[in-house]
C-alpha cells in the first residue's frame, strides 16, 4: 500500500520537476514556477502519507534499510526546499533540486519496504529514532548543499570565463548561492553531529562499546570531520569555488558510503541483516 502511495507521490514530483524545468527554460512563464511549487507541496504531502502508512504497516523497520533512509531523506529535502523557496524566492533553483529528488526516488519504487529481519527490541528506543531522523535530516541538507554548489560552479565558470549564457540570466548571484550553501552545510553539520552522538550512545548500549572500528563508524567520523572542517574553514575565509567543490566531494562520499556499506553484505553491523542475527541466535 505504502509503495503505491509513494508511486503517486513520485508522479507528483515528476510534474513539479517538469514545471520547474519549463520555468528554467522559459522564465517568462511565471505560472510554471507556481505550478512547480504547488505540485512539489502536494508531492510532499502524499509522500508524508506514504511514510505514515509504511510505518503503520511495518512498524518502522523500513528505516533500518537504505531504501527507508533514502525515502525519508528525499521527503525532508523536498520539505526543506519548500521552506527555502518561501524564504528566499529561488524558483530557478527548483530546476536543480527536483531532478535530484527524482533520481534518488525512482530506483526505490522497485524495492520493497521490508527490511531483512525485524530489528531487535534493544533498537526500539528514542535514541535510535533521534539517530535516524537527525542523520537523515543532516544528509538531506548536505544533498541540498550539493545541488546549490553545482549551480554555483556551473555559473562561476560562465562568469569567470566571460560566457554569459543561460545560467547567467537565470540563477541567483554567486554571492547568494555561496551564502545559501554555507547555511545548508552548517545546519546539516549540526544535525549530523546530533546523529553521531545519538548513534554512539546507541552503540554503547547495543554493541556494548561506543567505538568498535565498525566501517560505518569510521565513515561517519570521516564525514563528520570533513563537514566540521568546512564549517571551520569558512571562518578562515574559505568560500566560493573551493567551498563548492568541497561540498560536492563531501556529498559524494556520504551517498557513496551509504550505498557501498549497504550493498556489501556483512561489512557493517549498522542496521544490518537482523534476520541473520536472529537465525544465528536460534541456532545457538
Amino acid at each position: 500500500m505504502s509503495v503505491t502511495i509513494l508511486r503517486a507521490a513520485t508522479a507528483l514530483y515528476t510534474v513539479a520537476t517538469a514545471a520547474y524545468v519549463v520555468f528554467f527554460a522559459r522564465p517568462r512563464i511565471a505560472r510554471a514556477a507556481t505550478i512547480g511549487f504547488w505540485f512539489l507541496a502536494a508531492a510532499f504531502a502524499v509522500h508524508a502519507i506514504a511514510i505514515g502508512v509504511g510505518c503503520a504497516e511495518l512498524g518502522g523497520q523500513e528505516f533500518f534499510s537504505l531504501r527507508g533512509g533514502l525515502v525519508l531523506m528525499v521527503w525532508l529535502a523536498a520539505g526543506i526546499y519548500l521552506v527555502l523557496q518561501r524564504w528566499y524566492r529561488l524558483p530557478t533553483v527548483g530546476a536543480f533540486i527536483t531532478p535530484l529528488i527524482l533520481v534518488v526516488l525512482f530506483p526505490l519504487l522497485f524495492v520493497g519496504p521490508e527490511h531483512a529481519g525485524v530489528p531487535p527490541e534493544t533498537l526500539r528506543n528514542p535514541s535510535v529514532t533521534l539517530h535516524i531522523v537527525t542523520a537523515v535530516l543532516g544528509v538531506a541538507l548536505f544533498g541540498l548543499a550539493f545541488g546549490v554548489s553545482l549551480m554555483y560552479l556551473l555559473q562561476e565558470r560562465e562568469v569567470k570565463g566571460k560566457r554569459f549564457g543561460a545560467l547567467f540570466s537565470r540563477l541567483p548571484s554567486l554571492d547568494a548561492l555561496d551564502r545559501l550553501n554555507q547555511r545548508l552545510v552548517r545546519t546539516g553539520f549540526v544535525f549530523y553531529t546530533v546523529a553521531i552522538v545519538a548513534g554512539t550512545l546507541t552503540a554503547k548500549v547495543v554493541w556494548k562499546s561506543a567505538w568498535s572500528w565498525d566501517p560505518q563508524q569510521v565513515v561517519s567520523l570521516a564525514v563528520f570531520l570533513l563537514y566540521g572542517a568546512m564549517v571551520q574553514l569558512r571562518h578562515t575565509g574559505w568560500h566560493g569555488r573551493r567551498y563548492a567543490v568541497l561540498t560536492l566531494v563531501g556529498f559524494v562520499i556520504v551517498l557513496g558510503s551509504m550505498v557501498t556499506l549497504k550493498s556489501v553484505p556483512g561489512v557493517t553491523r549498522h542496521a544490518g541483516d537482523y534476520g541473520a542475527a536472529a537465525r544465528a541466535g536460534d541456532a545457538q
Partner: protein
Amino acid sequence: MSEREIFLVGLSHKSAPIEVRERVALTGDALKAALGELRSTEGVSEAMVVSTCNRVEVFVHAQADEPARRFFTSRAADAGAHLYVKQGVDAIRHLFRVSSSLDSMVVGEQQILGQVKEAYGLASAASAAGSYFSRLCNRAFATAKRVRNETDIGKGATSMSQVAVELVEKIFGDLRGRSILLAGAGKMGALSAKALQVLGADRILVTNRSPERGQALAAQVGGTFRPWDELTKLLVQVDVVIVSTGAPTFVLTRDMLHAAMKARRHRSICLIDLAVPRNVDPACAELGDVYAYDVDDLERVVSSTREARRGEALRAEAIVEAEVMAFAKEREARAALPVLAQLRRHAEKIARAEAERTLAQVGLKLDDKGRKSVEAMAQAIVNKLLHGPTARLKEAAASGDTSLPGAAAELFGIDHEPHEATSAESEERSAGNGAGRASAAASERS
C-alpha cells in the same frame, strides 16, 4: 464634408538632427496651448502630441494633415524637409511601434511607453483626445505590454556601464556594504562608479596619479580620495576596482593581485578595465576568485544584447502587425454598424406598422394568441430577410470594404450618415469626457 481619418505628422532621431528637434519640442503649458490650438482648428476632431528628446509627433483625427503640418512649420521653417506623414493604418502602426519601443534609438528601452502614456494623458486632460484616441491609445498600450511580456526585447544591458553593473551584481548580489575603487579619472569609470553607487554600494574610493584631478573626481562622484601609492593596500580593502587611467602599461599586474588575494583571504574581487590600452594584466583572471573584464568583454555583451534585441524585434513586429490589423478591422466594423442598426430599425418599424394595420382590420375576430402570432410572423419575416444582408455587411466591413454599407443604405432608402459615430464622439469630448475607459465604453455603445 469629407471623411475624417487619422494622420500622423512628425520628425524623429531618424529623420531630423537635434537642432531641428529641439526647436519643435514642447513641454508643459506650451504643449497644452499647442493642443488647444490644434483642437480648435477647423476639421480637427481630436489631437495628441508626443514630444520627447528623440521625437516630436502630432497625431490628429481630422479631414487633412495640414493642421498637423502647420504645427511644425510655424515653429521651425525648415522642419518641413524632415517631416514624415502617415495616414490611416500606417499612422496607427507607427503609434503602436513607437509605444512598443520598436522605433526607439535603443530598441526595447523602457521609457518611451511612459512618455506616450503621458502624451495621451495630457491630450485627454486638455480635452483634445476623445473616444477615438482613447480606443487607439489603449490598444497601443496593450500592444506595448504584449510585446514586453511575450518577447525579450527589453532584456540585457545596452551600455558598457550597464554591463559592468550587471556583472558586479551577478558576483556580489546585494551591493550594500560593498566598496568600489575608482583608479584613474576616465569618464566611463566615473559613470560606472556612479551607477554602482545608485545600486547601493556604500563606499567609493578614488585614486589617481595626479592628486588634483583625483580629488576633483572624488568630489564629483561623492567618494574619498586616496593617494596613488596606496594602490596595493586599497586592493585588499575593496570589492570592485574600476580602472580607467591613461597609462600605456598594466597598472594592475598578476603579482599585485596574487599578493592582494592572499591578504584578502581570497574574498572575491571584480576588476573592470575600461582603459585602452589595457591597464589590467589579463593574467590576473587566471587567479581564483578574481573576476576581470576589459572593454572588449563589456562591448561583446552590449553587441550580443543588440543582436538578441534585433531578433526579438522581429517577433515584436509580428505582434504589432497583428494588433494593428485587429484594430483596423474593428474600426471598419464599427463604421458599418450604424447602417446595420438603421436598416434593422427601418425594417422593424414597417413590420410593426403592417402588423397593426392587419390587426386593426381583422382584430375583432382574433383572440390574444392569434394577435401574438401575427406579430411574431411579421418579426420573423424581418429577421429572415435581414439575416443574409446583415452577415454580408459585417463581412464586408471586416474585410475593409466600405462601399457595401453605402450601397445598402442607397438600396433600402435609408439616410446613411457615415459620420454619425464621429459626431457622437465630438459631443462626448465637448462634454469633457477625458477618462479613456469611460469614453471607450461609451463609443462601444454608439
